[in-house]
């Protein structure tokens, strides 16, 4: 069921298999029946590693969500807590354990820390006097979760917000390029670890030729823009979490003849999205405007395939037709699903509001009137549109203008505080700290220079048959991906000047490899680069990288890893602070 992970140049399924194996080993350590108490945040990522059936095979009989108070009763021998190493969770666990002991005493407790064991947490448990109640305390190193054949994510939601964590897959990389402070920090750490662990690890043939570390803060613009690929739009509108999307059910009702459409399902429709689905793999990275054509083409192929049955004369032919049926039916239902999704999205993308919003975004990106108060933003505030939408646009304007003029800046801030409430002053401060919003300090605006040199705006973006990555934003070529592209050819030396304009240092390190480990490349075999986005990556950027991989003359394949899959909305949300009022 996870076959789609192994299609790529680098087989990421082994990561998943390793993770599964480790999980099984841990479960087997606790003999007898078990109940798992989940830190709710972890259920999503774990779903990508192991289904309930796997847990069941290892005698997991019950699953609960971690909450304070008493544990639900369950007739099991072991209670296992799957938690992130967070102090507040430790307090809940302690409470659970305390209330438990009075009733039973024969149940064993275990803790599995994901992704790291923490002395601090154990200390807290000790202070609470429950540490001794645990038979097993273990860690489950779930760093990079494979999402797709070419995509890994740490799903560390606050990575951008906090400082970045280390990553210890040193043996995988061969050459390191990077841009950004944090990238530099990570690279330093990796090189040191490489030295520390030298010799202790088996010498592994490097899978990747190049590792490119990119800080999110060198390209703050891209995630702010509305993504215009199919997958990007699904994420923008409905939000994709852990590879699943929840959609409004109306469009998915089974329309059977004669049946009244009274009983519409009320629960939202949950769909898994990954490249295991042939059709989805084909259209996910297309510009949405090209999706309709692709879907109708597919529809024709499928109905033609179904028509085949009339041509099937001999028994052999019929048999062959029947054998293909399941596959065809799956294709048909997949087509139906995506047609419905496309219709849902179309309703939104054709709306005036969407259009206006996009127009403003594109004006900013092309540098039109970025130094004035934008009337659209003003109107949106007056209409009390969602705050995040306003913040996205504002940040975008600020980024495209290398900061806002004091008058403009304060006007916006006042408007927000007056309309949405004073408490957002904290959020605004945060955005300022992250340089998403800033005051223009010098009169020089770097952005146009960067845009021109790196060709970030392509007037004639071809949405149907793209010839440049700019198609993912219908004109705007994501800066991060452009850097990646230039690195592959002709190299960063050609854009030295621009790199200096971007924040943070840029660097190149070459790891020394034992002679025997140099890969012998076959003629025509592509080089592989692992692009690691520190602080998150959007689906449109992923689409653009995939596009580069597929370009015939690129000679480079990209595997993408990140701390978190994000879009403008989730990203801004992670930076917001909202105190809860206590006044009753």
């Amino acid at each position, binding site marked *: 069921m996870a076959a789609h992970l192994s299609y790529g140049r680098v087989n990421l399924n082994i990561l998943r298999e390793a993770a599964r194996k480790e999980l099984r080993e841990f479960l087997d350590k606790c003999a007898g029946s078990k109940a798992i108490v989940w830190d709710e945040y972890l259920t999503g990522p774990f779903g990508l590693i192991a289904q309930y059936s796997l847990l069941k095979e290892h005698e997991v009989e019950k699953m609960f969500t971690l909450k304070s108070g008493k544990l639900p009763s369950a007739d099991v021998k072991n209670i296992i807590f799957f938690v992130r*190493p967070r*102090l*507040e969770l430790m307090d809940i666990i302690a409470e659970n354990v305390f209330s438990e002991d009075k009733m039973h005493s024969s149940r064993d407790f275990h803790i599995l820390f994901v992704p*790291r*064991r*923490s*002395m*601090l947490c154990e*200390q807290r448990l000790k202070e609470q006097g429950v540490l001794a109640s645990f038979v097993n305390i273990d860690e489950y190193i779930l760093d990079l979760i494979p999402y797709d054949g070419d995509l890994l994510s740490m799903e560390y939601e606050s990575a951008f917000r*906090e*400082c970045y*964590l*280390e990553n210890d897959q040193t043996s995988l990389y061969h050459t390191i390029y990077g841009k950004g402070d944090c990238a530099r*920090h990570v690279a330093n*750490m990796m090189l*040191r670890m490489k*030295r*520390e662990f*030298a*010799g*202790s690890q088996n010498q592994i043939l490097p899978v990747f030729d190049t590792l490119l570390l990119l800080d999110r803060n060198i390209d703050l613009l891209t995630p702010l823009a509305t993504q215009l690929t199919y997958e990007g739009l699904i994420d923008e509108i409905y939000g994709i979490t852990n590879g699943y999307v929840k959609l409004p059910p109306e469009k998915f009702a089974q329309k059977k003849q004669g049946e009244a459409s009274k009983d519409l399902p009320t629960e939202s429709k949950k769909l898994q999205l990954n490249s295991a689905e042939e059709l989805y793999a084909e259209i996910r990275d297309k510009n949405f405007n090209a999706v309709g054509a692709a879907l109708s083409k597919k529809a024709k192929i499928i109905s033609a395939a179904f028509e085949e049955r009339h041509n099937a004369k001999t028994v052999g032919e019929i048999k062959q037709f029947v054998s293909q049926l399941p596959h065809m039916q799956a294709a048909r239902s997949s087509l139906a699903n995506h047609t419905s999704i496309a219709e849902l999205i179309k309703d939104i993308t054709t709306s005036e509001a969407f259009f206006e919003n996009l127009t403003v975004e594109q004006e900013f990106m092309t540098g039109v009137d970025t130094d004035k108060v934008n009337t659209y933003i*003003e*109107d949106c*505030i*007056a*209409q*009390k549109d969602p705050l995040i939408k306003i913040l996205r646009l504002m940040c975008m304007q600020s980024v495209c203008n290398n900061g806002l003029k004091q008058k403009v800046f*304060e*006007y916006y*801030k*006042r*408007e927000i*505080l*007056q*309309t*949405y*409430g*004073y*408490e957002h*002053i*904290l959020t605004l*401060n945060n955005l300022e700290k992250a340089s998403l919003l800033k005051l223009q300090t010098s009169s020089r605006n770097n952005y146009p220079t960067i845009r021109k040199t790196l060709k970030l705006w392509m007037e004639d973006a071809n949405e149907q048959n793209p010839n440049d990555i700019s198609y993912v934003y219908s004109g705007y070529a994501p800066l991060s991906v452009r850097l990646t592209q230039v690195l592959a050819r002709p190299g960063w030396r050609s854009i030295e000047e621009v790199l200096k304009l971007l924040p943070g240092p840029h660097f190149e390190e070459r790891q020394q490899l034992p002679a025997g480990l140099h890969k012998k490349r076959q003629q025509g075999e592509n080089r592989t680069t692992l692009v690691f986005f520190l602080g998150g990556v959007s689906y449109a950027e992923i689409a653009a990288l995939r596009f580069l991989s597929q370009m015939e003359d690129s000679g480079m394949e990209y595997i993408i890893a990140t701390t978190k899959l994000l879009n403008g909305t989730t990203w801004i949300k992670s930076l917001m*602070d909202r*105190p*809860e*009022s*206590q*006044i*009753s």
Partner: protein
Amino acid sequence: MTFITANWNPLGEAFYRKSELYEMCWNLRDGLRDCLVAAAPYGGPIALLREPVRRSPSSRPQLEIYSASGVSIASFPWKSGPVVHLGWTVSDELLCIQEDGSVLIYDLFGSFKRHFSMGQEVVQSQVLEAKVFHSPYGTGVAIVTGSSRFIMATNIDDLKLRRLPEVPGLQGKPSCWVVLNQDRQTKVLLSTGSELYILDNTSCTAVSLPGLAPQGGSIVHMSVSFSYKYLAVLTDSGHLWTGPSHLQDKMSEVDTKKLTPPKQMVWCRRPKSQQPSVVLMWDRLLMVVGVCQDTIQFPTEDQCVLVGEMDGVRIISSTNQELLQEVPLVCQEIFKIASMAPGALLLEAHREYEKSSQKADEYLREIKEQSMLGEAVSQCIEAAGHEYDPNTQKSLMRAASFGKCFLTDFSPGQFVTTCRELRVLNSVRESSVGLPLTHTQFKQMTLQVLIDRLVYRQFYPLAIEMCRYLKIPDYQGVSRVLKHWASCKVQQKDLSDEAIARAMCAKVGDSPGVSYSDIAAKAYECGRTELAIKLLDFEARSGEQVPLLLKMKRSQLALSKAVESGDTDLVYTVVTYLKNEMNRGDFFMTLRNQPVALSLYRQFCKLQEQETLKDLYNQDDDHKELANYYVTASYREKRLESRLSLLQSAVDEYNKAKNEFSAKATEEEMRLLRFQRKLDDEKGAGLLELSLQATMEALLALGLYKQAEQLYRDFRVPDKRYWWLKLKSLAEKEEWDELEKFSKSKKSPIGYLAFVEVCMKSNNKYEAKKYVSKVTPEQRVKAHLAISDLDGAADAAIERKNDSEIATVLSRCSAADRLLIERLNRASTAKK
């Protein structure tokens, strides 16, 4: 060369040979008489405890430790209680089992390591006899006590004492007993003379030897083979019974015709043994009794000790040491007189070749005709492995190399490996090193263990040389040796810290896998803190340095190392430690020098200790953060007054931070809150905590226009937003007159299209129409369309001669509006 079979003795169909390993380097005045002797297998060390002639407190026995070649390693007077038994563990540690049941453990160099006891009851009843045995679980000890009970520990490193069941009718010690290892269980087989019992964890079972002749008599001696698979039993009538140790079968029964019990009895076999035997030793006689009933007798002059090995028996006397073993089959085939085995012919061929004789060719041809050359080469290589004498090894290897020349596809692997291994073996067999290992033993022991043994004996240069020669990956080889060397070095009290650190750095350098922190921990254990710190500096993994540094109370250093490691958890650990250890001021100062630790600590405080957070900001004069802190804190207050006072603090801090905007915004919020509270009190409006916009909205909805107006002016709300707000609010309440009045109050900053659209949203076309005329020309078409006035829209569009507007109007026309469509089309074409 011809004499190679000189020391061969036939036994049944096989041969036994006794070859000298060493002339012992030791000089024992009284020989091995009256000594407790323990010699470890695999060429292990020898321990001697000489019993003083008379037991008196003044004359203490001397405990001496020698290498297998008799080189003295340690010697010291025995000061503890009377020793019953000596034995060696698998990791070359000496076990001294005392009468009172305590077991003292010494290392190879005679330094005391630790001790354990075989149980409280033994102190009373005393140990009568003890045995040390080896099993897959490690080294074990079994004793029989004065109250005739067996107590056993199967692994002394994981001590679990097992008291075995009582043996019926046993008084004192049994006549003889052995420890068996069967089916992953350790048992004791014992004889009370006539009866034979097996003791396991739970039961004591009487057993009998299958096929032992009735006249056999009672059992006086037992011996179990190296692999625990075979058992030999000697009766008082001199009959030797042999069979597998599970006692289901009998292999043979031989009458030794000796009625005195032997001093020692040991199995002598080898893997794939053709002719296993048991070696019995009396005072002046050594008898090899084959299972085939054949015997060989060697006279001995001196007191000897037999050491059973997996492929033979070592015979240690006070002057020399010999290895008695069955000649391996391959050696028999090559060296047996008139052998025609391919290996023998190849050896002969090579010998002739060296003599430049053409006979070489004849021999070779003979082997080749039978296509046995490959076999011949293999035989020579294998035999070389089994030979102890380097010259014999060489001639066999040369023959093999010679034969190899005539083979095209013979893999050199076996030849190269054997060459290397022989060089290694020859070097450890050197008398100065004293590890008389056979090739078979070496293979069983593995190279890893051999290196360990060399390291235990502190033959560091040899071990390193060997690792390099055999190209063992550094991590398993050189580094491991260096690690041992280093932890031994730090214990050398006569060297200064500086000298040791320097030597350490020079030797160990950056060798992968050597953990400086482990070495430092060792140094710290020996009380050399300064040295430990010096050594920790070499540690690459900062994370590893931290725990030890904390232990040594170098917390500041620990903190910077933790930060360097990038391990958040580690930093937190040190920070928590520091927090408890230092006073607050010092603690903050320390953190201040470590920005990473500080920011991590801030995060921790944000979640756990808000108050501390404030102190931190205060100390840093970080007014902005302090202000933010007050803002956050204000929301936690339950009373408006306290919230306001916190907000006032925030204002002060924002001012200090020169953040005028925020200060002002906060002041405004305070004003708003007061205003809301006042109105809530007066009118019960429920405004508190609403945003300004929402407050005005609520006021308008309540019809409190004046108050709304007041806010609008007081807070300098932009006209546009206020107009929107009022427009929507009035339309919602359908106060159309008020709306009209409002529209005329001054020129609308949001234009009049908004009025049209908002009215239409309330489905009031009548009202909407009022504003259409006021709309700017650019929006007029849109306005007309909004009220579905196609004609008006068409007029406006035609008037403005705007193609796209005409097209917009056209798109809204239905078929019924034929006339209009024509008009529009005309206008459109007319323009062109």
